[in-house]
């Protein structure tokens, strides 16, 4: 009973210690108490129920009941009997509060404020985790498996937060887990007694129990440490923070790990929060958008980013960035922008105006020459940087020219996957039918989207019916969406119209503060299409409705603004002044929270696919470097072979050394015996150290044919005599006997075992000073 109580308390402690991993996701601290009470109630119920000895299967049920009672008392005491017994109406209240919380969590980017619903949701999850942990640790007596519910908690910040789990929070989880295993070890020791030890290292029962506890806890601690350290040693697995949801793409010179941009960003795109993200000062009266990511690949469902190269060639510093592709003579005003990130914001892709010509920033940052994305291999906080950029001001005549995109431009910017609904193609054709140049096509597309009344802007678009193509559904049926849908649809349609296009994601210019700075908040997150015109490079368009009915701070660039006439140099004519960002959100009330399920995301929702397409990797790896590569591969192969041969080599050296140093008599007998032990260990035949030489020989004798049995006995008898006889008698033929026995033992095993024995002899890996073989049961006894 004591054991069960201790285990229950230990599993409770493990769950409680795992709670801090949720802390970064929630802004206040109101949720701590409810979660704690829920977990404690579950544990106390477990203790109480087990004391009355009902069927163990019922324990989780009773725990769930009391947990519901506790939640009722905390969240709906008015409707409950005596403030604690749930009634139908109190359960209704609980359920609706729960649904509210769920919706809120789904909607808001972290950290969220702990409203009643959120608190209830978290408390329920913690209670569930506590019940599962309790069941595993106490009822199933499989404490090690408690890591599963704990991992469920750990995963939450990993998925939501790009920077992963705080190391201190992780340490708490680890400590809780180790503690649980230690208690488990202690109870097992109390139940089963200590392992029988040799008399000369006898310890008291207390010490023995302590050793038991330390063993189980130590094993767990070592395992956790290994799990943490090993990935750092393996290239491709390392990551800046503890297991950020990483897409580690193996690249040419250095491994570049990018956090998937859209997991968190999608929340930002639908965000209505005015949490400040950054602020900047600029030399322009009407600054342009700040771009972070470029999504260039569409697989029919998701837009993703091609993998990037982070190598010394595109390291920033000591010179201007590469020229923007396709722009023959950079024209337009030079813009100087000084950006300061808000306190709790961390980026691995910098928001910069396009096209940047120079970036001044501390640390290791890279610029992708093709997209001019500025990125790092890890997220960084508290950044301050300066960007020099051009304000794209294409002149009308050159825009109007009909020049096909140069052959240098990657074809992927024109790729349209086959899965796209054929109606879309028809639609595109009809829209651009009258356009004569790419520019006119682009304008036609943009105008089609922004035409009054055709599309509705809503951050919570209606759910897509099962089986519908999200893109087609957006274009033909619902016509309700937000920047993601607009940008993605226009990008694809531009490609169909023959204009290279890609989706850009970042922030709008934000709102102007009183002191001349521009404030950018979460609600300013935005997505827009970038279209390519030969000679002008990539130009952004704005199909998303702006102003209060749409993305509040969006603006149409002058060259793309139909209202600005010919659209050329009058660069500061058009942007719609930003209104207060709160207005940009659609009315929140009245919208059932349950509607925004992840599965209902429109086509552009890219969070499902990893952002690695790697289609352009071959470009860099072919060509000149062929022959050195061949040599490298050969050398690497030889090195691997050599490494693989090391254990076998070591085994053979040990054998030679043994016979060489064993001069006479007893030493030879010991050498032969050690050889026999090692050979059997290599083959995976083990016996415990309580077996005498003749008992071992007796057992092994059943494995080998008659011919080898005699040799086996000679070895065993020689060892016995060398150990115990006053004048040992050792036959001369021991080395030959060893060979006979080894061959016979090997022949008795399967080919897999033989191969393992040859390549990875277990005896070499044995710690020589431990003095005892593995105390495992004999496999074949």
């Amino acid at each position, binding site marked *: 009973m004591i054991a069960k109580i201790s285990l229950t308390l230990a599993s409770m402690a493990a769950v409680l210690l795992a709670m801090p991993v949720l802390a970064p996701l929630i802004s206040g601290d109101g949720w701590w108490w409810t979660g704690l009470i829920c977990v404690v109630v579950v544990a106390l119920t477990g203790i109480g129920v087990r004391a009355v000895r009902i069927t163990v299967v019922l324990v989780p049920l009773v725990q769930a009941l009391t947990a519901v009672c506790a939640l009722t008392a905390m969240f709906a005491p008015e409707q409950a009997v005596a403030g604690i017994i749930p009634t139908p109406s109190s359960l209704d209240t609980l359920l609706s509060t729960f649904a509210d919380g769920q919706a809120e969590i789904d909607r808001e980017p972290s950290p969220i404020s702990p409203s009643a619903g959120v608190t209830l949701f978290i408390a329920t999850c913690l209670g569930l985790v506590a019940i599962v942990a309790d069941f595993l640790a106490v009822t199933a007596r499989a404490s090690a498996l408690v890591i599963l519910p704990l991992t469920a908690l750990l995963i939450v910040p990993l998925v939501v937060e790009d920077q992963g789990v705080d190391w201190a929070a992780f340490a708490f989880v680890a400590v809780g887990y180790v503690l649980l295993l230690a208690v488990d070890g202690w109870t097992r020791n109390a139940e089963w*007694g*200590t*392992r*029988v*030890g*040799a*008399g*000369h290292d*006898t310890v008291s*029962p207390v010490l023995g129990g302590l050793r038991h506890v330390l063993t189980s806890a130590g094993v767990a601690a070592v395992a956790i440490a290994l799990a943490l350290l090993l990935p750092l040693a393996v290239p491709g697995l390392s990551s800046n923070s503890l297991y950020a949801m990483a897409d580690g793409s193996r690249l040419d010179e250095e491994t570049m790990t990018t956090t998937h941009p859209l997991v968190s960003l999608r929340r930002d795109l639908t965000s209505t929060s005015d949490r400040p993200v950054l602020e900047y000062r600029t030399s322009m009266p009407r600054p342009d958008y700040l771009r972070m990511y470029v999504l260039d690949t569409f697989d029919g469902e998701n837009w993703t980013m091609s993998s990037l190269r982070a190598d010394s060639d595109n390291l920033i510093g000591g010179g201007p960035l590469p020229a923007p592709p396709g722009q023959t003579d950079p024209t337009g005003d030079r813009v100087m922008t000084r950006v300061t990130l808000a306190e709790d914001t961390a980026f691995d892709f910098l928001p910069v105006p396009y096209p940047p010509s120079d970036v001044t920033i501390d640390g290791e940052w890279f610029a992708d020459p093709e997209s001019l994305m500025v990125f790092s291999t890890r997220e960084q906080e508290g950044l301050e940087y300066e960007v020099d950029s051009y304000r794209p001001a294409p002149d009308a005549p050159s825009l109007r020219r009909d020049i096909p995109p140069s052959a240098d431009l990657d074809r992927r910017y024109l790729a349209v996957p086959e899965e796209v609904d054929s109606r879309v193609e028809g639609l595109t054709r009809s829209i651009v039918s009258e356009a004569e140049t790419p520019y006119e096509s682009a304008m036609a597309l943009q105008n089609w989207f922004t035409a009054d009344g055709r599309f509705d802007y809503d951050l919570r678009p209606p759910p897509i019916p099962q089986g519908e193509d999200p893109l087609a559904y957006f274009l033909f049926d619902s016509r309700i969406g937000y920047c993601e849908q607009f940008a993605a649809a226009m990008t694809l349609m531009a490609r169909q119209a023959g204009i290279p296009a890609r989706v850009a994601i970042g922030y709008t210019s934000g709102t102007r503060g009183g002191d001349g700075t521009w404030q950018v908040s979460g609600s300013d997150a935005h997505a827009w299409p970038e279209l390519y015109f030969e000679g002008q490079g990539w130009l952004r368009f704005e199909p998303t409705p702006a102003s209060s009915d749409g993305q509040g701070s969006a603006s149409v660039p002058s060259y793309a603004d139909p209202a600005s006439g010919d659209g050329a140099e009058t660069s500061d004519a058009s942007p719609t002044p930003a209104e207060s960002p709160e207005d940009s959100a659609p009315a929140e009330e009245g919208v059932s929270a349950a509607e925004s399920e992840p599965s209902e995301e429109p086509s552009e929702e890219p969070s499902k696919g990893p952002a690695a397409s790697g289609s352009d990797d071959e470009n860099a790896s072919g060509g000149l470097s062929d022959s050195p590569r061949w040599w490298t591969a050969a050398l690497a192969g030889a090195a691997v072979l050599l490494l693989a041969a090391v254990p076998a080599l070591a085994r053979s050296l040990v054998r030679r050394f043994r016979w060489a140093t064993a001069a006479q008599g007893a030493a030879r007998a*010991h050498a032969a015996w050690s050889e026999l032990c090692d050979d059997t260990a290599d083959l995976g035949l083990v016996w*415990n*150290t*309580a*077996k*005498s*030489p*003749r*008992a071992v020989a*007796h057992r092994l004798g059943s494995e080998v044919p008659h011919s080898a049995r005699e040799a086996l*006995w000679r070895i065993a*008898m020689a060892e*016995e*005599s*060398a*150990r*115990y*006889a*006053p*004048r040992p*008698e050792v036959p001369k033929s021991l080395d030959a006997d060893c060979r006979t026995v080894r061959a016979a033992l090997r022949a008795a095993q399967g080919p897999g075992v033989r191969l393992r024995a040859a390549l990875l002899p277990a005896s070499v890996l044995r710690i020589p000073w431990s*003095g*005892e073989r593995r*105390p495992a049961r004999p496999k074949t006894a």
Partner: protein
Amino acid sequence: MSLDTRYNGHGDGLPGNPDGVLATAARIRQAIETVIEGKPDVVRIALTVLFAEGHLLIEDIPGVGKTMLAKALGRAVNCSVQRIQFTPDLLPADITGVSVYHQERHEFEFNPGPVFANIVLGDEINRASPKTQSALLECMEETQVSVDGATHSLERPFMVVATQNPADMEGTYPLPEAQRDRFMARISVGYPTPQAELDMIDTHSSRSPLDDLRAVAEAADVRTMVDHVRTIHVASGIRRYAVDLISATRTSSALRLGASPRATLHLVRAARAYAALEGRSYVVPDDIQALAVPVLAHRLLPSPEAQMERRTPERVVSDIVAHLPIPSPR
């Protein structure tokens, strides 16, 4: 545990005439095995105890041949055998003997009791009162009898073979642990195999096989063998192993009372005899392992927890033997 004798170490030359000694031992064994059929291990332990100068406790249910074994042992060796049937009214003097006043010579004269013999068979020892039991057990330990201030030595070899019924049978006084400790080994005969029982019906129904048993050895032969046993080599590794084993019984949580230092001595002595019976001139761990249960189990008291789990001391000892590492020779 292998009791195989096929693979004896060759050993080196035994002092005296070892082959002769061994041959004697083998003859005694064969002779006893004609009476106790199908129980070679029991006979071997009995001989081991004889040559190790210990005393043997045979504990078993009635009718499986406890007394027969003891008698056969006494018959096979041509020496004096006395049998004492223990009953509740038996007095100490009935065992040790009494001094009586000699009317003619006007002095006390010592009339030796049945304990003055080479092999003393104490039948159903746990039926006598504790006082009487302890009188016999003192003789066993000291190999001498003190009556009325005079000390009378007992003749070598001196071996007590006591039989007892299991402690929970009616009309028994269980031997206290202090007295059980004086027996070198405890064995139980056990039921015979069906085949042995069939044979027994054929042979024993007409006449007792004991009648046919002729002495195959003299008391002097036994003394020679005992002397030979004392020369058997016990390597330091074996000594440490024996101590480890004893210590493990003292620290085991399943045992309330561990083995005494006397048990250590008994274990090593028995192991010597066991090795000698195998024709070896040195003790190997297998000897210790074979003897651990018979030599140690009857001295141990299980802890209450072990009792509840029905873990007998025999099982505890064999568990310890199965897991205790044999000290590495280097």
